[in-house]
């Protein structure tokens, strides 16, 4: 049994990266994620790791691209404005079918925004973020333990599906401290990296890592191949947590930090005798559509809670059974705008009062 450790979410990410075999980190300081580069700058020398504080987010994602092309496990981390800058490199990595882990400890935007928690970068994360119609794997931890576990999973999924993977948390999860069990790296069947550049030895084939595809039909075929891979991800890797959903009339849905707050409210509602449950997506891409589809055959209504004006709700709408009623409660990011469990409990009570098929936006 591993000893428990009391650490910050960001530190758990860094610890997990080391446990997952990552020895190459390239980053740039930005609040609220700077504990990650600081931890690795301190720990890597003794482990023989390569740590570079790059001149920019653009440089750091391209260093990740280069290291990943050589087959090593590599990571970068950032937040809001920095993640925007990384999109160029993420698109090239997707086009070159390169693995690599990108940690996004979200802050507010647009622009410089602010450093408090936000879920308004859901679209940026789950829709690819850069040009070219690709997606990346997006994992949404809701606890420090999950920061640790999902960071390790991100490395495995990224290697298996040969695409970038993002650990998508926010300032709340990144900055808070919880006790975790730093489990050893789980066993995983990983494909051989027979595509990495290594210096072409006599009698071996030339290897090229590239995204340029100019041959007739070559790019179209690649897009369909990516499409198939995303479908496979959806089938095999969708992950979610259900809490008290078996007999629930109302199912609250939220991810990450919003889900923690929602869970407290659901527990309070249960104590008050209300039939309420929680569905928390753990993978945002692939989105656990099946969970919503199956649940909406049983419950009467979904209450979606986000720290934004509503982005995940698009995916929820696409996943539920036709005619399912969806309520929405959003607190767009801002200092002092994090909802309390009591506030969400009120929303639960309201949602249980009225069942109509009105658009969720008519509530505002």
């Amino acid at each position, binding site marked *: 049994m591993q000893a428990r450790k009391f650490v910050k979410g960001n530190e758990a990410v860094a610890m997990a990266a080391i446990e997952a075999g990552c020895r*190459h980190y*390239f980053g740039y300081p930005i609040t609220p994620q700077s504990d990650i580069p600081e931890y690795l700058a301190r720990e890597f020398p003794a482990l023989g790791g*390569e740590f*570079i504080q*790059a*001149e*920019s987010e*653009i*440089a*750091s994602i*391209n*260093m*990740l*691209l*280069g*290291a*990943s*092309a*050589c*087959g*090593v496990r*590599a990571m970068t981390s950032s937040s809001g404005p920095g993640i925007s800058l990384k999109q*160029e*490199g993420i698109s*090239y990595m997707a086009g*070159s079918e390169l693995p690599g882990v990108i940690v996004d400890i979200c802050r507010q935007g647009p622009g410089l925004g602010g450093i408090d928690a936000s879920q308004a970068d859901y679209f940026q994360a789950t829709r690819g973020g850069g040009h070219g119609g690709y997606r990346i794997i997006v994992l949404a931890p809701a606890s420090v333990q999950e920061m640790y576990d999902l960071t390790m999973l991100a490395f495995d999924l990224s290697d298996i599906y040969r695409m970038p993977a993002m650990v998508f948390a926010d300032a709340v999860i990144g900055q808070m401290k919880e006790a975790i069990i730093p489990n050893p790296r789980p066993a995983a069947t990983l494909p051989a990296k027979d595509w990495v*550049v*290594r*210096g*072409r*030895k*006599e009698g071996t084939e*030339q*290897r*090229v*890592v*590239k*995204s*340029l595809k100019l041959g007739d039909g070559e790019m179209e075929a690649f897009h369909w191949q990516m499409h198939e891979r995303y479908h496979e991800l959806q089938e095999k890797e969708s992950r979610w947590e259900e809490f008290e959903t078996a007999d629930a009339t109302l199912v609250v849905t939220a991810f990450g930090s919003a889900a923690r707050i929602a869970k407290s409210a659901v527990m309070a509602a249960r104590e008050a005798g209300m039939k309420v449950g929680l569905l928390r997506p753990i993978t945002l891409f692939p989105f656990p559509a099946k969970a919503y589809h199956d649940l909406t055959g049983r419950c009467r209504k979904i209450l979606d809670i986000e720290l934004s004006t509503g982005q995940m709700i698009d995916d929820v709408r696409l996943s539920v059974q036709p005619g399912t009623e969806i309520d929405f409660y959003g607190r767009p990011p801002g200092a002092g705008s994090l909802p309390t469990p009591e506030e969400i409990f009120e929303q639960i009570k309201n949602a249980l009062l009225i069942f109509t098929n009105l658009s969720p936006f008519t509530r505002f």
Partner: protein
Amino acid sequence: MQQVFKRPASLMDVQTHFCPGCQHGTIHRIVAEALDEHGLRDRTIGCASVGCSVFLYSYFDIDVVESPHGRASAVATGVKRARPESIVFTYQGDGDLAAIGTSEIIHAANRGEDITVIFVNNTTYGMTGGQMAPTTLVGQKTSTTPYGRNQSKDGAPLKMAELLSNLDGVAFSARVAVNDPRNLIDARKQISRAFRYQAEGKGFSFIEALSACPTNWGMNPLQANARVGAELIPYFPVGVFKNVHNL
């Protein structure tokens, strides 16, 4: 019968897409000769850039990573840190290295990354159709400076070999040209020296190679070659600006 001249083994036996009179082919060849000379081919990883040089992997018989526009020296940093035993070089044009990639090249050079950078300066964006580059000469007409580059508005052409030689992290910096036999022989010597720096683990080496672009200069190959000597070299002097270990 003794063979006295042959294609370098590091270069594939294929035709290039380069325009008649373009000097990328010549520069490719002397880079390949340097890899052969030092026996580096089987541990070399090239970092291609965006522009006419993107097809590096179609001509060099080595492993290649394609880099986003301007980012080759950051990609090369990642490659070298992941595989320190490799010989890593970038091959970048002037728009790529000296405009969009200025930050990446300055910081890779300043960190003293143990890589070799081949910078081809033909004073224009070749592949996109002859727009103004950071190295376009004052007065030079391009598709985006139809009245000539205006220094008061567009600034003066950047002299990258001199600029980088001022950084402590740079071990070797030289500018070469391939417009006449004397310069070509010197270019071979300097490029060989740049790779020797890396092979001996002696630090960051930088080669700026002046190159003709007849198509975008609106000249025939002979006129374009003559322009390298008459207009480019007077502003971009060939020579060694830094050679800290006197290799």
